[in-house]
């Protein structure tokens, strides 16, 4: 594994290294663990936590009122029964995908630059999936009965319908969350042991000690650990590709014009990774500036993430073009009506906005200057996140708005409670993330140490 890393570095001398020169085992350990252990709480952090915590409180209010009044407080109706709840569910779960891609697929592909961003990207995944999961549960209207979604023996003698994509979705999302959590925690254990051994505070020592499960770095343990880590990566790889595939089945298995299409699975997965990398950059760029982590999260990392965004963004753009082409080529009047509704209907600005960004604006990422400029890249990422939200709105709302019968057409206007719930989850997400970077190492310490040439035994000496 490390052999490849070294040849990579040697073969591309012009490339910025994935770890700034001059670091040792000790400096890496201290730099990352000091953020948690010794740096203390900064005013900026407190300020951001107060804001995002306050915004998360809005979610609390919105959810409480929802429990009191029911889903009627949202703008949903018949025919548009899905509205914001499903738009935001798909958006959030898509964002999670980049975390798993970075931690699992890039590990299998031996991309050493992932080592400094996998930890917080995985945390991002967990928080995004939490926010995502909230929407379908609230959307059931009776969240306290959400456990009915799972198969369990009950006095009503009913069981879930396993031929429905909605049940598949329950399994896909809950498996995704569980495996992401296990993968993330497994990766954390050796670093928690490092924190336990470095902490001066007694409470911190105890808490990190318990969380680290008594990890002591035994060679036998490492051997099993690396196998398990690789297996989890191997299992997460098909999993991450499947989650948004299953989400797309919620649409594609239905017969509604604009949904019933086979391009949905790949195009949903690409869109998910696209928006996920945008969120990774939105988090990474301020973090590396605030905590002075430019040695670990280098310009090359940003550049690589931007390239991922560009590639997946173009796949999404291709999806739009093919969608249009097939609807025209098929000669299906309902499908064509759906396209015309996107072009000219009341939600046309949303559609044209996403086309402008995902077909046009994304191409700024072809320029190295954009990819290497953190501030510009940050704003590009925010714009892309907005565009992907618009895409999900277009898919969910425009298709439901006008189906086969004119008599069943309708309109959907999001209410203030729709917005409050959505914006509230943003607050929850950022508050959770801020807490995470204060109490856990946001960069994988042991995997960063592993990047050093010193981490590799000298073959010649060992075999002599």
């Amino acid at each position, binding site marked *: 594994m490390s052999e490849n890393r070294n040849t990579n570095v040697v073969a591309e001398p012009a490339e910025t290294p994935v770890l700034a020169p001059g670091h040792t085992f000790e400096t890496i350990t201290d730099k990352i663990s000091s953020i948690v252990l010794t740096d203390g709480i900064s005013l900026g952090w407190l300020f951001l936590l107060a804001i995002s915590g306050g915004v998360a409180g809005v979610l609390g209010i919105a959810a409480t009122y929802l429990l009191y009044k029911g889903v009627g407080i949202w703008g949903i109706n018949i025919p548009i029964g899905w509205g914001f709840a499903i738009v935001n569910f798909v958006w959030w779960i898509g964002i999670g995908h980049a975390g798993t891609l970075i931690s699992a697929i890039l590990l299998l592909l031996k991309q050493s630059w992932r080592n400094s961003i996998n930890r917080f990207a995985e945390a991002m995944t967990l928080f995004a999936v939490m926010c995502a999961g909230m929407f379908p549960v609230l959307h059931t209207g009776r969240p306290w009965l959400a456990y009915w979604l799972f198969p369990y023996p009950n006095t009503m003698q009913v069981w879930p319908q396993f031929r429905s994509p909605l049940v598949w979705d329950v399994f896909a999302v809950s498996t995704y969350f569980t495996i992401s959590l296990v993968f993330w925690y497994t990766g954390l254990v050796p670093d928690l042991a490092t924190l*336990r051994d470095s902490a001066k505070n007694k409470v911190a020592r105890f808490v990190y000690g318990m969380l680290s499960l008594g990890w002591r770095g035994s*060679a036998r343990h490492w051997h099993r650990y690396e196998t398990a880590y690789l297996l989890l990566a191997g299992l997460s790889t098909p999993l991450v590709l499947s989650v948004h595939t299953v989400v797309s089945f919620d649409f594609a298995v239905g017969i509604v014009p604009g949904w019933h299409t086979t391009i949905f699975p790949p195009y949903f997965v690409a869109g998910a990774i696209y928006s996920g990398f945008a969120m990774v950059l939105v988090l990474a760029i301020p973090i590396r500036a605030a905590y002075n982590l430019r040695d670990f999260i280098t310009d090359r990392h940003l550049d690589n993430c931007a390239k991922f965004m560009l590639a997946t963004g173009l796949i999404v753009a291709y999806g739009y073009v093919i969608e249009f082409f097939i609807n025209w080529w098929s000669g299906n009047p309902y499908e064509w009506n759906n396209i015309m509704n996107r072009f000219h209907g009341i939600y046309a600005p949303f559609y044209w906005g996403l086309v402008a960004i995902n077909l046009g604006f994304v191409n700024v990422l072809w320029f190295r200057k954009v990819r290497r400029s953190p501030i510009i890249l940050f704003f590009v990422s925010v714009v892309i996140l907005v565009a992907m939200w618009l895409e999900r709105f277009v898919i969910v709302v425009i298709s439901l708005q006008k189906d086969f019968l004119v008599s069943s057409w309708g309109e959907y206007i999001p209410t203030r409670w729709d917005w409050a719930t959505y914006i509230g989850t943003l607050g929850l997400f950022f508050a959770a993330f801020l807490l995470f970077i204060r109490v856990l190492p946001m960069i994988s310490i042991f995997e960063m140490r592993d990047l050093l040439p010193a981490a590799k035994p000298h073959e010649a000496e060992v075999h002599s």
Partner: protein
Amino acid sequence: MSHGAPVNVHPVYGLMAEFDTPTDVLLAAKKVYAEGYRRIDAYSPQPVHGLAEAIGFEKNRVAFVCLVGGLLGLLTAYALQVWINLVAYPLNIGGRPLYSWPSFVIVCFELTILFGGLSAAIGMFAMNGLPLPYHPVFNVPQFAAASRDRFFICIESVDPKFEMAATRSFLESLSPESIAEVPY
């Protein structure tokens, strides 16, 4: 030995030697093993490739446990869906067959991944004997650096070849940074 108060046959857990680099610890581990010591362990802040093999570790069953777990998940999902759709709660939807196996594939896949992943992680920790908050090696003050930048080898006193003086002088011959007795 009766089941009364524990009798400490060995006054210490073992002897521990500290090394500076992965190369040093790997060389030393090979020598310790070649010397005939078997109840030994090596400690490092990040995985050192070849170190586990150097101290004679071969039985890594994590992959097997993961496979069994995954297959169990597959079987569980398939059996559950077939039983529910055909026996427990058969629903006629548009006259489609009750045994519509293609629609079972997704949940089969998900539970394969879920059971396999959980087996790999839980199995790994269990086979490693974790969680175990207390271990004698933590009594050595230098050992705090085992999670930072230092590498250790410990020869345990239960090893038949272990003799305090002889083992200590053998460890000294490996030129470690330090040697420490590991108390219980």
